[in-house]
């Protein structure tokens, strides 16, 4: 024991080491790493309870609500919570709701949602159902009945493609949006304006902040923020015009279906079509109809099997908005645009005369390619205006040759592709920027495209010799390869009508918040211009006027009171093998030819001649716009293009 005091020093040293270890670690935890732990402590104890905002309304230009909200008692099932007795629960629910088991199962069998996400299986159930399930909670594990605000469409199918619909947020969307205030049970705009303006329509969810203990018991409430309703969309769309456009499109399709094809081998199918009414001066869309259509109310109450297979799988593709989501060959409606381009490049002039032979061959072409006019007669020399009026193809074929030759001579510099550049100036080959989703850009054929184009997806080259003169020649008459959307064509005609402003087509006039303040209005709608003189544009408008009075659409517009409402327009019949021809008419209407107010366009898939298929639809829509009595033109024969 003599060494006790020195051995006590050893013990003391060990104790000192303990204190050093503890102090060092405490310094690290409490001084160096404290920020991280403070964050974790905050995450631990703060809980949020969210309340959903009311979605904004969608109103037409006069304030008619096109989309409203209504209360629905919704039955939701969380698959994870169904328990081992899930089948019995669903059977019980089926009896209570009087919905077949397979319908409930079908709605549950989805991989769009997480298994811990409540899935709606029935909407608009009675309060009795809610009370019953609430009372016998043990019999219905994983089942809840919650009041929700769902969409209401006072005018049913009207403007379905434009308005769009909502749907429960998908699993992958939720992953992306959960930081932006979305909950698993939230709906989100799926298509149309509902999708594009989701950010405005949604509103801000209300938040109640709680401090909770480790058992989840609330200790105290911190802040409350009430939900803010979404902003209302005030549209340029006019309910009356929209309904007129839809009715005239539908009536027109039925009428066309009774008429034979040009070779009289079959009746026209007229299976689909689109009508656009646009303000020529501003680009404001007053009506946009697409057929076939669907009923957005299906998505409120959940699609039945039949509705689902029709909407998603039927070959008629009712989900497509044909005004913007498909590219079509424009036919002769394109001649107003290509005629202006020919004037701009000096290939045509207002005073010039151009021959309209029955056949045309590109000068120097030895391949034997011959382009035919729509008639076998040689009509002789005519002005550009008259060529538009009677839609002479060979006049435009010759302009196409000149565009091609210019390209060949200037291949190495950027100015070679005059026709393509001019068409892009008119907005073709690019989306218009309309406030709707999934717009297509169409196609302006150019050398790059000609190099890559193939027959079928992986077939041989469509143009083994590359960019041949026929491509420009056919583009001049709007045939074969060029593709436009109805809205692009309406936009280009709008520029011709308003003196050269390429106005971005748009549907929303203003967005108004719940306080009544305008939060957004479209800007720079007409900032782009096309480089044509007022006299050139007036010249084309006059030509379009003579189409109605003495040209290809004269019989269709026979008896139309042009003294009251000036109308100009252009027919188009686009071959689309193996289908029947696409029928087009682009009209403009107003007080006079100087500043037409409306562009009215109709396009009918497999609708035959423009003059007989689409033009009468445009005539009747214009009559509706101007409150004119509905009248009918003469029986137009074939031969109009």
């Amino acid at each position: 024991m003599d060494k006790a005091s020195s051995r006590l020093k050893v013990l003391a040293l060990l104790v000192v080491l303990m204190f050093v270890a503890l102090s060092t670690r405490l310094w690290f935890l409490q001084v160096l790493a404290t920020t991280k732990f403070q964050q974790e402590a905050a995450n631990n104890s703060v809980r949020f309870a969210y309340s959903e905002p009311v979605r904004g309304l969608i109103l037409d230009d006069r304030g008619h609500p096109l989309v409203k909200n209504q209360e629905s008692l919704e039955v939701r099932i969380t698959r994870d919570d169904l328990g081992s007795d899930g089948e019995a629960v669903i059977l019980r629910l089926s009896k209570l709701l009087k919905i077949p088991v397979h319908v409930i199962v079908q709605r549950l069998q989805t991989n769009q949602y997480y298994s811990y996400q409540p899935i709606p299986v029935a909407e608009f159930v009675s309060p009795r159902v809610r009370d019953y399930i609430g009372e016998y909670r043990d019999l219905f594990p994983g089942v809840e009945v919650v009041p929700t605000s769902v969409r209401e469409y006072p005018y049913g199918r009207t403007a379905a493609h434009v308005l769009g619909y909502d749907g429960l947020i998908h699993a992958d969307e939720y992953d992306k949006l959960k930081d932006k205030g979305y909950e698993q049970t939230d709906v989100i705009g799926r298509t149309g304006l509902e999708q594009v303006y989701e950010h405005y329509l949604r509103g801000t969810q209300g938040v109640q902040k709680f401090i909770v203990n480790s058992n989840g018991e609330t200790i105290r409430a911190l802040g409350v923020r009430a939900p803010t309703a979404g902003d209302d969309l005030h549209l340029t769309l006019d309910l009356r015009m929209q309904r007129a456009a839809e009715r005239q499109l539908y009536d027109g399709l039925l009428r066309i279906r009774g008429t034979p094809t040009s070779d009289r081998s079959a009746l026209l199918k007229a299976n689909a079509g689109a009508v656009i009414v646009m303000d020529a001066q501003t680009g404001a869309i007053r009506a946009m109809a697409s057929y076939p259509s669907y009923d957005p109310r299906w998505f409120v109450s959940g699609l039945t099997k039949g509705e689902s297979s029709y909407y998603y799988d039927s070959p008629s593709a009712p989900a497509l908005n044909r005004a913007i989501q498909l590219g079509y060959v424009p036919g002769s409606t394109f001649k107003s645009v290509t005629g202006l381009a020919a004037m701009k490049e000096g290939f045509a002039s207002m005073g010039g005369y151009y021959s309209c032979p029955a056949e045309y061959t590109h000068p120097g072409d030895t391949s034997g390619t011959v382009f035919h006019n729509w008639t076998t007669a040689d009509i002789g020399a005519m002005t550009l205006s008259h060529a538009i009026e009677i839609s002479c193809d060979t006049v435009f074929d010759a302009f196409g040759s000149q565009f091609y030759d210019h390209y060949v001579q200037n291949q190495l510099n950027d100015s070679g592709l005059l026709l393509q550049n001019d068409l892009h100036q008119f907005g073709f080959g690019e989306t218009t920027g309309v406030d709707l989703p999934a717009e297509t850009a169409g196609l302006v054929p150019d050398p790059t495209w000609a190099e890559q184009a193939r027959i079928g997806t992986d077939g041989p080259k469509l143009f083994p010799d590359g960019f041949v003169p026929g491509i420009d020649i056919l583009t001049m008459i709007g045939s074969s390869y060029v593709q436009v959307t109805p809205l692009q064509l309406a936009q280009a005609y709008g520029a011709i009508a308003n003196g050269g402003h390429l106005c971005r087509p748009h549907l929303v006039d203003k967005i108004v918040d719940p306080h009544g303040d305008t939060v957004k209005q479209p800007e720079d709608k007409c900032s782009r211009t096309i480089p044509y003189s007022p006299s050139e544009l007036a010249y084309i408008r006059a030509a379009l006027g003579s189409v109605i009075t003495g040209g290809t659409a004269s019989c269709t517009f026979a008896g139309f009171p042009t003294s009251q409402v000036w109308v100009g327009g252009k027919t188009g019949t686009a071959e689309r093998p193996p289908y029947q021809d696409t029928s087009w008419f682009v009209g403009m209407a107003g007080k006079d030819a100087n500043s037409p107010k409306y562009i009215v366009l109709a396009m009918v898939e497999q609708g035959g001649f423009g003059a007989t298929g689409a033009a009468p639809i445009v005539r009747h829509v214009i009559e509706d716009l101007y409150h004119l009595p509905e009248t009918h033109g003469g029986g137009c024969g074939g031969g109009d293009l």
Partner: protein
Amino acid sequence: MDMVAGRAWADERRPVRHIDWVLAAVVVALTSVGLVLLHSISATVPDEAAFWLVRIMKQGATAGVGLIIVVVICSFDYRFFKVYAGFIYLASLAALVLVKIPGIGATDPSGVAQRWFSIAGIQITPSEITKLCVIVMLAAVLSQIRTPEPTLSDVVKALAVAVVPLVLVFIQPDIGTSIVIAAITVGMLIVAGTRLRHLLILSVVGVLLIGLAFQLNVIQDFQVQRLTAFLDRANAPEDARYNLDQSLVAVGSGGLFGRGYLQGTQTNLDYVPRQHTDFIFTAAGEQFGFVGAMFILLLYALILWRAIRIAALAKDPFGTLVAAGIASMFAIQMFVNIGMVIGIMPITGIPLPFLSYGGSSILVSFAAIGMLESIHMRRFT
């Protein structure tokens, strides 16, 4: 020496004049801190305020009883314990055996361990008392050595004394107390002058025995899980990590000066399991921060300083060894408990002296202080 001077001399050496007031003051301070922390845990837990009030009063009453125990024990001459060391030791072994007998010992709510007697609603944990009994017995054995340093047979004899209660405690199972007994033994062997070579052999044997214990599945699953959770935190199951995670968040979020009394969300919202017993230090770390934690460490440092000083000043080897054993006990309990709370030691159920809620632990700590005082007071007699 005349009578007056002799009386004065004797008077000077009267034990009551040599109370270690520093030690007494630190113990009172630590106990007060414990009550303050216990109150903070209970203050904002809803519906349990009354329940917690009972706990605080119980803890306060226990501390009161503890002070009486200090007075009683220090009024005895500590050498009294040397005389009765054998009886004390055997009695504690008997208690450890009895507690394992069904119907006599009480099983804890989890059903895993059987560690205490329940007498008139008061829980008595024999393993806590065993710690002091082992100290007394070891001190009695080691103080008999007449050679300058213990021979191997002395060391084995001392080990035999320690191993029997250690095994009995270990199979309860109470790994925490086993660790404390082992540390006490090592600490006392060091102070007794054991050769370094013997200590090394001892540590090798110890490691082998621990390995054997794992091999023979003597160690309970939850204890293995705690250990793996400590060694491989990232891959540990959520349950095994939870306590440590919450404890680290609590201490770490305290920062330099703490979040303020009753302002700690981890503590006050009851996120740290067992925060009134083994994890009481989290309440201090969160509410009073690094400064508060260091203050508590300072109080323990003062206790250990006084204990080692008493060991150095003691009149005889028995006193030195008892004081060194008590110093070892407090040191290892403080280190393992705070170490596990801040993640540098695995989680074992070792209470923090004077702070953790629990009667037996508090009373044994006070009894140890009483023995320290007794040794200090009689260093001249």
